[in-house]
């Protein structure tokens, strides 16, 4: 159950999204580190620590894995409870699981004997409270207010270079082709409306693609035959949700670094496909090593998108760029979420 808008959460504390991969990973890693730290503290040497940890793990890991499954299943129900009751319920679930695993381990024989039940329960309670406390602090650090402020600041920016060159191109049309000038100004207006709109909501992929087409129309006017865009969108899930203005900067970068420095025609490929429950976006342009260095500025735009994806999808989104021989390719992967239930 992931919210469709970041701003939707009230400021009150809430349980973390226990179905989010990033959250699950943090729980697993966090508790294991905690256990390892404790073992390291108790034992005099590294070798003894490792031996001891493997023994600890034989009871710790079953509890952890069972917890992940149990909490995954219970999450919808847990989220309906008030925060404190929710935490108490999580604690109860954990104590129950710890008891079961403890009993099983005790039966399995001396090799697995985990000591007294009271001690196991105390450790389980400690770890649970620690994890809950961590997520509470984490949620506060990334509270909606903060996340919103950061999203506003990260609102993607169009290069002034593009704005002024586009205005110049429109001016050249005003006398020769007033209708095309009108259309171009309307496209520019749409682009800037989107740019200045609320950056905190999700938008439909179909709308983002329409915006890309308007943007590319303006670039086409400036660059003419030099710009060739190949759209591979047949398998794009038009109802997928994504943060606004994530795709446009990718295309803008591709044109700025791949097409503008070329004397002849140069091709940009925009490919969007759905792979199961993931949406994959690829933007590809010709790689020009030296001119790319001189033009610079690419890094900021990419970091900006990366940060926004993180705020929207936590660890579930991925942004990568790589050089493939003569081609430069940027790839974004986000979880597929349909716009059917989009809160408007």
């Amino acid at each position, binding site marked *: 159950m992931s919210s469709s808008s970041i701003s939707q959460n009230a400021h009150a504390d809430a349980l973390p999204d226990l179905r989010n991969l990033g959250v699950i990973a943090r729980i697993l890693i966090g508790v294991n580190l905690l256990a390892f730290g404790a073992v390291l503290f108790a034992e005099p040497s590294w070798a003894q620590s490792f031996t001891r940890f493997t023994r600890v793990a034989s009871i710790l890991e079953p509890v952890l894995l069972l917890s992940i499954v149990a909490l995954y299943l219970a999450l919808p129900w847990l989220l309906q409870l008030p925060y404190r009751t929710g935490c108490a319920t999580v604690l109860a679930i954990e104590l129950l699981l710890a008891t079961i695993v403890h009993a099983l381990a005790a039966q399995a024989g001396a090799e697995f004997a985990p000591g007294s039940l009271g001690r196991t329960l105390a450790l389980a309670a400690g770890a649970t409270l620690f994890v809950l406390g961590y997520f509470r602090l984490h949620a506060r650090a990334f509270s909606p207010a903060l996340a919103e402020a950061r999203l506003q600041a990260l609102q993607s920016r169009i*290069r002034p*270079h593009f704005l002024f060159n586009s205005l*110049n*191109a429109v001016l050249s049309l005003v*006398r020769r082709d007033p209708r095309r000038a009108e259309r171009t100004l309307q496209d520019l207006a749409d682009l800037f409306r989107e740019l200045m709109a609320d950056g905190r909501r999700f938008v439909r992929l179909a709308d983002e693609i329409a915006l890309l087409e308007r943007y590319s129309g303006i670039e086409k*006017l400036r660059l*003419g035959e030099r710009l060739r865009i190949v759209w591979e969108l047949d398998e794009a899930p038009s109802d997928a949700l994504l943060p606004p203005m994530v795709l446009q900067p990718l295309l803008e970068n591709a044109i700025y670094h791949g097409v*503008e420095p070329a004397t002849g025609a140069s091709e940009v490929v925009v490919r969007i496909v759905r792979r199961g429950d993931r949406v994959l976006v690829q933007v590809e342009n010709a790689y020009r090593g030296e001119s790319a260095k001189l033009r610079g500025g690419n890094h900021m735009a990419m970091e900006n998108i990366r940060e926004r994806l993180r705020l929207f999808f936590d660890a579930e989104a991925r942004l990568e760029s790589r050089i493939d021989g003569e081609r430069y390719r940027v790839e974004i992967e986000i979880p597929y979420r349909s716009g059917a239930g989009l809160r408007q």
Partner: protein
Amino acid sequence: MNALAVFIADDEAPARERIKELLADIAPELPTRIAGEAGNGLDALEQVPGSGARVLLLDIAMPGMDGLELARHLGALENAPAIVFVTAHDEHAVEAFELNALDYLMKPVRAARLAAALRKAADAPAPDAERLARAARGPRQYFSVTERSRIVLVPVRDVVYFKAELKYVTLRTQAGEHLIEDSLVALEREFAQDYVRIHRNCLVARNAMRSFERAGGDDDDPHWNVVLDGIPERLPVSRRQWPLVKGLVNLGRE
């Protein structure tokens, strides 16, 4: 009527059209004629010398060769045109222009500003090489050699070595040699990444050095020569530079 010959270099066709419209608008007070147009830096370099242009309206961000480098090469012409730079938005360029007192216009250009810049430029000499070099963003991609009022370009990466001789510097490629007017010190500074000084009078491309060969001296104090890729000639390494140079051959070849 004595129309001012203007050459327009801009990679965006609409931008060139716009400039032509504006030139037509200001024609009653400042008659001009179009001496030529080019859509990238290399084309402009080829066409400007024979065009009779007195003023060049020059976009900065152009493929092939950017406006600042183009201006540096054109400066070598005997009657080089005056240059008015035109830029959409380029913080670096604008700062460099201000700093070096180069004339520039911002896109979209206003007719009145264009007229003023053309009037001023018509009376002004071409900007000097020094100021253009300071305004440039990075090292040049080409050296230019003027041959019978044409400009011949030599890609920097083709240069195997530079050698100072009396007044001039000789630049050697696998194909031949040319005289250029830059000083060895300035070249060393501009191309420090790719060229290394091996002698008081000589800079060599790091990736052209193949090996060293013993050139005399006695065992306690040997002299060395650099063996180069593609050129039979050997270049002496000075004793002073030897400690610095000797490690480069292996470094340069992985």
